[in-house]
């Protein structure tokens, strides 16, 4: 992707089809954030239906490449949530997340992905309201930014990957 770096990629202002709905993938740790998302449900909070949750045991499992892979497969936004620092079920898995995700955020901007499309926050098992607010926030931001459609952009630039290939970009 090095050859694509010098040219900034426009990600705003494209006309979205009327039927377009933001597609956002959220990676949540099982012990705090996933339970926090459950807490939002138990409290019957309402939030937009655009965020689909994928659970992992610990936010430390969230490989930065899972984030970029989600964008490469057509996500308009990605969310990463884990336990608050100090509350990790695995002592310090989230410390690694804390180190990785700011780098991911910067890398995404360099790849031409607006920072509004990526949200990294800590959500405890009790913070259903915070989770609902985060979903509101990222959905609003992504809706304003419009479709990202990275698979098409990558195709146009001849970058391998995206849909139509195997799960890891291989044909």
């Amino acid at each position: 992707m090095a050859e694509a770096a010098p040219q900034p990629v426009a990600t705003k202002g494209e006309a979205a089809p009327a039927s377009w709905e933001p597609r956002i993938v959220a990676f949540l740790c099982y012990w705090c954030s996933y339970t926090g998302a459950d807490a939002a449900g138990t409290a019957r909070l309402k939030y937009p239906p655009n965020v689909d949750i994928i659970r992992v045991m610990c936010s430390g499992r969230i490989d930065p490449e899972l984030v970029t892979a989600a964008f490469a497969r057509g996500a308009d936004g990605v969310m990463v949530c884990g336990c608050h620092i100090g509350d990790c079920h695995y002592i310090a898995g989230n410390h690694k997340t804390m180190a990785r995700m700011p780098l991911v955020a910067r890398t995404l901007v360099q790849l031409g992905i607006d920072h509004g499309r990526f949200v990294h926050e800590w959500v405890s098992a009790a913070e259903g309201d915070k989770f609902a607010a985060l979903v509101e926030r990222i959905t609003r931001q992504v809706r304003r930014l419009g479709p990202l459609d990275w698979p098409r952009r990558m195709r146009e630039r001849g970058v391998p990957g995206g849909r139509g290939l195997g799960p890891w970009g291989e044909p």
Partner: protein
Amino acid sequence: MAHLGAAADGPADSRASRIGVFVCHCGGNISDVVDVERVAAEAARMPGVVLATAHPFVCSDPGQALIEEKIRELELDRVVVAACSPTLHQTTFRRTVDRAGLNQYLFEHVNVREQVSWVVEDREAATRKASRLVRAAAARASHLVPLERRRIPIQPSALVIGGGVAGLVAARDLARRGMKVTLVENRPFLGGRMAQLHTLFPTGENARDLLAGLIQETAREPRIRVLTGAHVIGSEGVVGDFRTRVRLEPRGVDEHLTYPGNAIAACPEETINEFDFALSRRKAIYMAYPGCYPPMPAVDWRSCTRCGKCLAAVGGKGIDLEGEPREIELHTGVIVLATGYDPYEPLYGEYGYGIFPQVLTLQQLIRLLDPEGPSGGRLPGNGAGPGRVAFIHCVGARQVDGVNAPGPDGKVRDYCARTCCTGALHAALELKERYPRARMTSFYQDIRTYGRFHEEYYERAAEKGVLFVRYDPNHPPRVERDRGDHSPLVVRAKDLLTGGLELEVPADLVVLATGVVPHDISELISMYRCAVGYDSFLLEVHPKLRPVELAVSGVFLAGCCQGPMDITEACAAASAAASKAAAMIAQGQVEMDPFVSRVDEALCTGCQTCLTVCPYEAITRDVARRVSRVSDALCTGCGTCVASCPSNAIQQCGFTDAQVISEVDTLLAPEPAHELVLAQGGS
């Protein structure tokens, strides 16, 4: 992305799979919002899905029977259930598929209640979201592989660390269930913090009488070995076989010592008596308190000069001043941590503490009220007792960041210490009984006499004329020298109950109802890799459902190492920890989730990045093969090493890249309705 290439289990498996999808109505909880029939119909078109159906209550007996029946009838090899949160029924359905002869990890749970039907209002949007999640789960299911739960044999023995009331109860309960127990206490005497109390709320019983009975019960148990002056210095192994290294300080005294009083009297060295919170001094050879256990003195090596005067006073028998510490190794199946708490030590000048001799902590007052205490139960003064006493609650508890000075760890103690309200009122009533003329004022934020029969203390204190002044935590009371000559001190506070009236209350004695901080066990924390909460207390697996277990399998929590508790609660927690530990031992083996990491030796370059990120030191380097190796017994399945491996040589069972990516892929694939439109447009 390209180099993320090989996944441990490729999609080849998916072509062979026969997936059954069951979508739950949850009696309307789901089906009122989500069109479950449409979700099932859309799932049925996924590759590999041979059955997709909806059912009113999949978790009910008929629902589970349906799953079992279909597994047998259609030879299903993967099962997806879309229902409530996996925290509720994942285990239920795993057992269901297990009963039907299918490996329980070939089951995939989708949450369409807490995360769909309860949070999305629009029926179309909810149905589409549920459909996406169910199809993603079906895609993931085809990548699942059978996994076996890890089983580790377990020794029928326990190590209890801490000889306070919680440790004693845990040890006694474990021994009565037939376990061999080793109780280690790093001080020379058992009893812990409870021994420093006088009478207990809510029964008014004498603390040390109660404790003596418990110690006798414990010490009499033939299965319990008590080690005092014992420091845990190292630990290896895992649940089932913990190998703990313990350093035993010499006691300096043995059972041949016949007249301990003579030895103590002969000792010329004096030091601060921490048992009385520095209110008294003790000798270098000492008994912590009357009736202590073991019932013989110990030598405090930090203050002993080895002058030998004690030895001469007892005729040269029973005292050994030349003893050296020795190390032993203990093999136990489980560990109970009962390391307790320390009372919060106010900072110099906090509410005048350390500046004015009339400012005491509640613990010091309790020592002074104790007839066996440093003053024989009398308060300092001319015998008439204090005329005016001010109690200040929430000292070192419920602190406000920016108002109260942080402790040495940089944090304020913002949690409620739970015992000090009732404790302070209990002491106030006792004071009132001894000195009926004493006038008492209690400065509080909230009175939290939350326990059973504790509220009576508040009511009785109010009846007896204790004046309650509610202060604003943002403007805590100030203790100052009285400018007049009514009394030595004056407490100034804004009383919220009278609309913020500025009060000046003269005081002869100010008692700080201090909070509870965890005993410093940083070495044990790193040794056992315990999770610690923001309040620095140990963190249980789940505060409600698994309250006495640490995330480290085989390590249990008893008492105040987990948070402020009164004796009732500490004993309940200790008994709970003992029964949990005994239940684990009774099974003969421990079962653990199989979500461990696996290293693909062909891909591993031996860079050792994974060694640095593993919080459990579960990864070692195989020097001969120059690869990393994961210990199944130590790995807890967080997956941090997977994310850090630059060669993608590590995969986490149950959460492989292929499994996660198949979910991402399906979630982002065109939705069925769109597919139709696109297909028409394209042709």
